């Protein structure tokens, strides 16, 4: 299981966390990541609007596939988006994204020195995320 990168977007679509774990994506400037995050936030909302089935509260984009990667997007009920980029045909991305959310709930939400909606600079979160993602590579 190779995870290339993890991105976290706040409710307004602002990029609050970005980290590469394994080579697989292009080297992209931080500014470009900001643009990608912003656009994706808009696109995500529209994907639920164009749903042909008439279910109310249809969810937005959840999985995006390309030739070289698969991206799992998990949006929490509070509007936070977790984007996990991994090698294609990656089986258990749902488990991975849920675990990342738990680590976020523990090491970011419970850190008194983290300000809500701001970029994440919690050393504890980095350490535990790397410990969780790295060995699987």
């Amino acid at each position, binding site marked *: 299981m190779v995870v290339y990168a993890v991105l976290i977007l706040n409710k307004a679509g602002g990029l609050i966390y970005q980290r590469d774990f394994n080579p697989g994506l292009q080297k992209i400037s931080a500014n470009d990541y900001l643009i990608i995050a912003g656009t994706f936030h808009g696109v995500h*909302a529209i994907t639920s609007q164009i749903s042909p089935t008439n279910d109310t509260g249809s969810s937005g984009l959840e999985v995006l596939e390309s030739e070289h990667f698969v991206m799992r997007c998990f949006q929490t009920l509070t509007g936070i988006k977790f984007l996990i980029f991994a090698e294609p045909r990656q089986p258990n991305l749902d488990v991975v994204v849920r675990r990342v959310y738990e680590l976020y709930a523990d090491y970011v939400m*419970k850190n008194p020195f983290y300000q*809500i909606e701001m970029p994440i600079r919690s050393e504890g979160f980095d350490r535990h995320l790397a410990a969780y993602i790295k060995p699987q590579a």
Partner: protein
Amino acid sequence: MASTTRARLGEEVWKSRTDKINAELVTLTYGSVVAQLCKDLDGDYAEVNKQLDKMGYNIGLRLIEDFLAKSNMQQKCANFRDTADVISKVGFKMFLNIIPTIANWSSDNKQFSLLLDENPLADFVELPDDGKAQGELWYSNMLCGVIRGALEMVQMQVDVHFVSDILRGHDTTEMRITLIRYIDDEMPQDDE
């Protein structure tokens, strides 16, 4: 979603997905926070209530993420009654290991009460007998803020306040929760 499934979920999350610690540590730490507030605000209990509520609100904004992550709830509550079940049988169970009874539903299903027959925050507590505290201080007011903050993060604006407290000599500890409105999601500007 039947309330029995909510009860089972609460039980299961408490058993298998919650790290546990000594309850008295939380009780005494909460006590030291309230005491510090009473000292800082030199006995202005109305202000202490407000500050406790504000601190609770700050906690609620964060606690909701922990709640959603651990309880793995994917869908929003179907209606306010379901929300009441989730708060009592999953939320309270998961964090404070108690299940308050839900009571006194208003006819329009917009108001209900939570009766805390057990309140771990208020163990060993006796309000100061300065003649004011028992009339003005809501000792566990932080809980109101927590619920208000948490629900606001899932697009529900509510008012939460205590109506009675055993510490004040009442027979029950009762919190009144009122749904003010559902906050609709902010839509991103349609830049397509």
